[in-house]
């Protein structure tokens, strides 16, 4: 009781402490609200942009190496209406999405097949764990040799990189299917395929979507890397290479990279929304007891480092 009284803001040593504590509680109040949190986030972003702007203009770095945030933003805005750049973005997006789509079409049925055959999933997981650590970008030279055309090189690399997270998460998802749910449908006379289609697949759905979400971010990295190396008619990577030539335009480079980041955020956000949508892909309430929310298995949590 006494300790409470001593630490109460009103009894602080001076008005400074009182103001600090009031500011603290106001910040906590802001953080507790949806719009408040958005506001604080916006403040953070603006602060970071301002810092970059100041550092760039201070001349600490070579003015060429670090373009001021304002000019990057201006370039980025111009690029949003530049048909040439949008064409490049479209080339990248189509290679990215088609590789990803192909990976889904291959990995989900493969996962269902392997996962529904007893004990085979353990063997399959071992194979996946061996194949997965090979960084997809390490295969770029091989892919160029085999597929030659940049378009096909990119798509096949994205597909390869995306295959593992999706397959792995499908296998994990099938392991998590509630046996009582499967028995319920079996008791009603449904066969193996019926149970697979009506219980296992929907139940593993959120895991699969998580796998696709991870695969999407890996795929974006792979497609841009492949474009940087393999070149081709167009694409974000090709655009970035072009900004490098002729003295170089760091502002355009950073702006182009920012747009690549926007693509990643959009894919992540869209798939994350599908994951959270109740009833559709993600069954159940946010925290249903006895059945944990699908979690990204270890090693897939951060598709970073060597795997890129």
């Amino acid at each position: 009781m006494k300790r409470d009284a001593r630490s109460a803001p009103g009894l602080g040593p001076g008005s400074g402490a009182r103001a600090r504590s009031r500011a603290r509680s106001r910040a906590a109040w802001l953080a507790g609200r949806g719009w408040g949190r958005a506001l604080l986030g916006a403040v953070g972003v603006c602060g970071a942009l301002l810092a970059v702007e100041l550092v760039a203009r201070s001349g600490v770095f070579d003015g060429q190496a670090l373009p001021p945030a304002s000019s990057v933003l201006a370039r980025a805005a111009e690029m949003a209406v530049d048909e040439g750049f949008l064409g490049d973005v479209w080339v990248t997006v189509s290679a990215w999405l088609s590789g990803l789509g192909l990976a889904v079409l291959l990995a989900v049925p493969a996962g269902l097949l392997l996962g529904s055959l007893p004990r085979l999933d353990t063997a399959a997981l071992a194979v996946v764990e061996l194949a997965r650590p090979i960084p997809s970008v390490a295969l770029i030279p091989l892919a160029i040799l085999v597929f030659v055309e940049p378009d096909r090189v990119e798509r096949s690399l994205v597909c390869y990189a995306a295959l593992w997270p999706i397959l792995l998460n499908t296998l994990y998802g099938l392991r998590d299917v509630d046996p009582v749910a499967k028995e319920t449908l079996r008791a009603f006379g449904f066969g193996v395929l019926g149970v697979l289609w009506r219980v296992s697949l929907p139940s593993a759905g959120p895991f699969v979507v998580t796998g696709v979400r991870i695969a999407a971010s890996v795929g974006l990295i792979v497609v841009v890397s492949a474009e940087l190396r393999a070149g081709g008619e167009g694409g974000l990577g090709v655009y970035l290479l072009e900004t490098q030539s002729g003295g170089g335009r760091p502002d355009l480079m950073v702006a182009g990279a920012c747009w690549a980041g926007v693509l990643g955020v959009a894919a992540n956000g869209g798939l994350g929304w599908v994951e959270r949508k109740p009833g559709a892909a993600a069954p159940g309430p946010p925290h249903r007891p006895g059945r944990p929310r699908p979690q990204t298995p270890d090693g897939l949590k951060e598709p970073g480092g060597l795997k890129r």
Partner: protein
Amino acid sequence: MLEIAGLGHRYDDGHQAVAGVELHVARGELVSIVGPSGCGKSTLLRCVAGLQRPSEGRIAVGGRPVDGVPDDLAVVFQDYTRSLFPWLTVRDNVALPLRRRGLARAQRREQALAALAQVGLDGVAGKYPWQLSGGMQQRVAIARALAYRPALLLMDEPFGSVDAQTREDLEDLLLSVRGGADRGGGSEDRGGMTILLVTHDIDESVYVGDRVVVLTGAPGRVHSELRVELPAPRDQIVTRGLPEFVKLRAEVGRAVRRP
């Protein structure tokens, strides 16, 4: 309808759940199974449903030996929360098994809504199971089994988490659907619904049962069978007040306590 001879099951870990169970159930009969907890009641039901291959003994449903899940069967699992599909609405949960009946979509929905109305859940057809209370979820599972109109209905403590009033209503519903009262849908020739009800409520076992089978403690075997000769129609107030009811209840209670 159901013949069980010398049924025994020992799990892989060596636990003998049931041993030497003999049971014959006639078509349209409602048999209550009571016994101390852990006496293998659930194992017995799983073996009858063909979900568990017994290590010894024979089971035949409708004259055919059970090898895999028998035709025309429904199970209401004790673990109702895990048995409902969270990605489907309540109505679709109830309608899903009706695909096995070869019904059109509209008919499936109609039957599902009718079954939900029977268990007093008209208003929640569009909700998801996890949005409902435990008792309501349990009623959804019961409605799903009733909508299917199986020849053999197995229920594993189906009324465990519903409130007393609803429980009485569901007991009466069970009495009304068995014995052909609700066996429409072009299945007249199959006669009434045969029901095997596992319960730990002694009053309930007597009130709804044509017969009460008492199992002994683990490993479960049939301790005794009591025929319930209470007049129909049964009534929650009147029947439970009859001297015969009180006498039967005491007999079952003694049998459960002194295996």
